[in-house]
């Protein structure tokens, strides 16, 4: 049984999170406090007015780390402290974008830092109750966060009259039950109300009408984990890290055909190629890099050539034609069959479509079936255009942005590797023997050979 995501390879640059040795107790309150933990909460509660906290977060330029990179301070700033309504802050710990596992690292190793950020955020918005929505499958993360919450209550860091300052806050740890779409903020709030996780149209924004129709801020785990850092260091010091337009660091989880998969913390602006070929050790078995899915499968892939001039920050990724998204990077080696990869991706979107909007519910199924047909050797010449048509028909016609982007992955694969689809359709077989794996641990297993025969 594996206990935790344990990769932490030192990179050059500032580290806000991966800056301590991981031990059996490093996630505990005692160890966290010994590292200076909860001093930011003390500072916020004792020395700062709620609006000042929001001002500081705005001044830091902190961008949301869930995928959309929306300025966190601007989101908080929408909530009016004097409206007489209850306000809620919800930590989005429903990490489910394929390729993304950095929040899991934060929840397992620095649960108190995430919690401290949530309490500070809740203070800034004068919330009496805050929520953590954690995905149902996360067992260790859930236990670590649950323990952290109980420790915080014991220590007077949660509940009535926190640290004797007069501010009170309760935290509800809420476990999902298996749904990709619940990572979308409005779906998450529906789920928190005990309903099926269906996204809803905006306006009104969630910061105006959110959980039970009350103003609600939903922030990603990593976004909230940055808040104590900003309060401790001050916005101006925080901004010295990273690039002017992407201040701070980004937790990147990298997987696929990479020699050293795992979670890394990089300062924004770090050279992309250096990250892949030096820090992550290049590709498995010295294979050549074909392309990269930069920030979860919903972001458009970039070829090896395209990433050459890019750096790891939002503007550079945008200039390159994609996004950093959730920091869930997947490295794909030369020799991988992109038709089969598209099939795996499309099966996922079909499976996870919540079924509310027709273009996504029907379209993802059509795309999966077309790809299944091509892979089975029954592809038709018109299939490629049809895949394009369906994927673009989704854009702007669905309630949530997950629906919007559900076709992006496939259209980006078609943009780059159309010839592989044409070859598959014409020859009724893959240009690359349908290969998905570089080094298959199950290749030699006798039972596998029997099962495949």
């Amino acid at each position, binding site marked *: 049984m*594996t206990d935790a995501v344990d990769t932490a390879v030192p990179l050059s640059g500032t580290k806000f999170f991966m800056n301590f040795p991981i031990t059996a107790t490093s996630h505990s309150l005692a160890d966290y406090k010994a590292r200076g933990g909860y001093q930011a909460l003390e500072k916020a509660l004792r020395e700062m007015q709620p609006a000042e906290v929001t001002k500081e977060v705005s001044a830091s330029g902190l961008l949301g780390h869930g995928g959309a990179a929306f300025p966190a301070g601007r989101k908080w700033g929408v909530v009016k402290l004097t409206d007489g309504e209850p306000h809620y802050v919800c930590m989005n710990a429903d990490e489910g974008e*394929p390729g993304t596992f950095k929040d899991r690292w934060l929840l397992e190793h620095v649960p108190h830092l995430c919690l401290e950020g949530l309490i500070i955020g809740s203070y800034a918005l004068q919330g009496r109750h805050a929520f953590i929505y954690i995905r149902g499958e996360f067992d260790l993360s859930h236990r670590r966060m649950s323990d952290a919450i109980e420790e915080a209550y014991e220590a007077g860091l949660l509940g009535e009259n926190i640290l004797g300052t007069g501010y009170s806050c309760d935290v509800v740890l809420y476990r999902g039950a298996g749904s990709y779409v619940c990572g979308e903020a409005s779906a998450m709030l529906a789920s928190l109300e005990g309903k*099926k996780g269906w996204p809803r149209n905006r306006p009104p924004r969630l910061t105006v009408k959110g959980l039970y129709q009350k103003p609600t801020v939903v922030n990603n785990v990593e976004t909230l984990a940055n808040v104590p850092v900003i309060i401790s260091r001050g916005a101006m010091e925080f901004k010295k890290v990273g690039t002017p337009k992407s201040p701070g660091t980004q937790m990147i*989880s990298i997987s*696929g055909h990479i020699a050293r998969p795992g979670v890394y913390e990089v300062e924004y602006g770090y050279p992309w190629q250096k990250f892949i070929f030096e820090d992550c050790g290049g590709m498995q078995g010295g294979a050549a890099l074909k392309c990269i899915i930069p920030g979860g499968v919903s972001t458009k892939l970039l070829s090896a050539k395209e990433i050459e001039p890019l750096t790891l920050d939002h503007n550079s990724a945008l200039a390159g034609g994609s996004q950093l998204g959730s920091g869930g990077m997947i490295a794909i080696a030369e020799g991988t069959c992109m038709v089969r*990869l598209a099939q795996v991706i499309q099966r996922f979107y079909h499976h996870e479509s919540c079924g509310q909007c027709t273009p996504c519910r029907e379209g993802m199924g059509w795309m999966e079936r077309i790809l299944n047909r091509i892979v089975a050797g029954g592809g038709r010449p018109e299939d490629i255009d049809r895949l394009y048509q369906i994927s673009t028909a989704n854009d702007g016609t669905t309630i949530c942005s997950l629906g919007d982007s559900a076709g992006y992955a496939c259209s980006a694969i078609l943009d780059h590797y159309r010839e592989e689809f044409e070859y598959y359709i014409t020859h009724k077989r893959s240009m690359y023997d349908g290969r*998905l794996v570089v080094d298959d641990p*199950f290749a030699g297993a006798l039972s596998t050979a029997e099962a495949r025969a």
Partner: protein
Amino acid sequence: MKHLIPEFEQWKRRYPAGFEGSLTIPCLRRIQEDRGYIADSDITELVEYLGISRIQVDEAIVFYTQFTRKPLGTHHLQVCHNVSCSMRGAEGLIAHLGAKLGIGPGQTTTDGRFTLTTVECLASCGTAPMMMVGDAYHENLTPASVDALLEELAQ
């Protein structure tokens, strides 16, 4: 389900007033953990306890993939076959499990010990291929580690 009510009452204390409906999913999770699946009587009793509509509970059970209305095998093997896992051997892992257990995805062994399911991304991409058994993640799987695990579970 009724014997779980004292536990549910404990949870309520940290929720704001008027959030009874929010307990639907936590209660369903606990019921399933207790019984192994969600029975008709659980639904009727939960509807009555929370004072919510029956359709809200029915929809939640159908919508969330972790809920089941039928008993599963003693050990529920959930293998991720999303992108990163597929790139690290998930197809071979599924075939290997299938050959060892004599079942395919979605099936339960005749002795009721194992249910095999394929699932989408469990956020364990850096340690692929992987599967979840019960609540526990098993990562960086190889034929040898899978065989050892199956033997341990069969005892």
